[in-house]
């Protein structure tokens, strides 16, 4: 039963990311990325990382993906032939161009083959027993306040710097362009 759920969510993750690869519409790929990230959150739950699954849904699905969709819409200028005529009924028709498929797919398939042969060949003695399910919220809270206190503080400073930097970067062009 648990294996069935695992396979379902793994298929959701991989299917979503494959659809991002295949589709040409940028908006569709943003929504397929949503599916893939939710699948990863579910896989986190099955690996007894419940806090990280909630953080994944809140940070990626609630934050990064909304930011990505804003980015897609702000960097798109509708062409004149799409605002009138039959194309006007499809306002979200934002296309990406592709490079040649051959070499990227060869590189990716070769990388996966190498990884897969490596994973099927190695033998972790760790994996012989199964880890029991347990909540990780208490331990993460303790670790953040003891062993990882310095990275925790540095992450706060990094987020502040990113906030200020993103605001500065996205506002600067307006003033210089409008002069």
């Amino acid at each position, binding site marked *: 039963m*648990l294996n069935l759920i695992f396979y379902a969510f793994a298929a959701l993750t*991989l299917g979503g990311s494959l659809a991002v*690869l295949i589709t040409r519409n940028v908006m569709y790929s943003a929504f397929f990325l949503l599916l893939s990230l939710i699948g990863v959150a579910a896989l986190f739950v099955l*690996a007894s*990382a419940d806090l990280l699954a909630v953080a994944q849904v809140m940070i990626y699905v609630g*934050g*990064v993906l909304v*930011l990505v969709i804003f980015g897609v819409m702000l960097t798109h200028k509708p062409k004149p032939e799409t605002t009138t005529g039959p194309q006007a009924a499809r306002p979200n028709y934002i296309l*990406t161009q592709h490079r040649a498929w051959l070499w990227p797919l060869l590189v*990716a398939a070769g990388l996966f083959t190498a990884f897969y042969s490596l994973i099927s060949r190695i033998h972790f003695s760790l994996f012989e027993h199964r880890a029991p399910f347990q909540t990780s919220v208490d331990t993460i809270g303790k670790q953040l306040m003891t062993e990882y206190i310095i990275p925790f503080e540095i992450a706060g400073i990094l987020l502040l710097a990113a906030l200020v930097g993103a605001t500065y970067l996205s506002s600067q062009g307006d003033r210089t362009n409008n002069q």
Partner: protein
Amino acid sequence: MQAITPGLYLVVAAALFSIGLAIVLVKRHAIVVLMGVELMLNAVNLNLVAFSQYDPVRLQGQMMTLFVMVVAAAEAAIALAIVLQVYRHFRTVQLDEISELKQ
């Protein structure tokens, strides 16, 4: 209740990483390339979490995943601000059309 075999996590993460790499290599739209980078980061996180369930006392893998998520959020915000500036300057975000330092 028994957990999943962690070897399966490694295979899924390897597939996710390869697909993310293919997206980065194939697509020309800057934001779709960023999506590929996010998928690759998620694949690495999946590996870290899969190994971390055997370390319930210190949970080093999950702590690492938490910090990777923080850095990925900061990276996404900064990268999208830069993409916005590139669009204002060049009026396009298709990466192959942006080939000049100055216009």
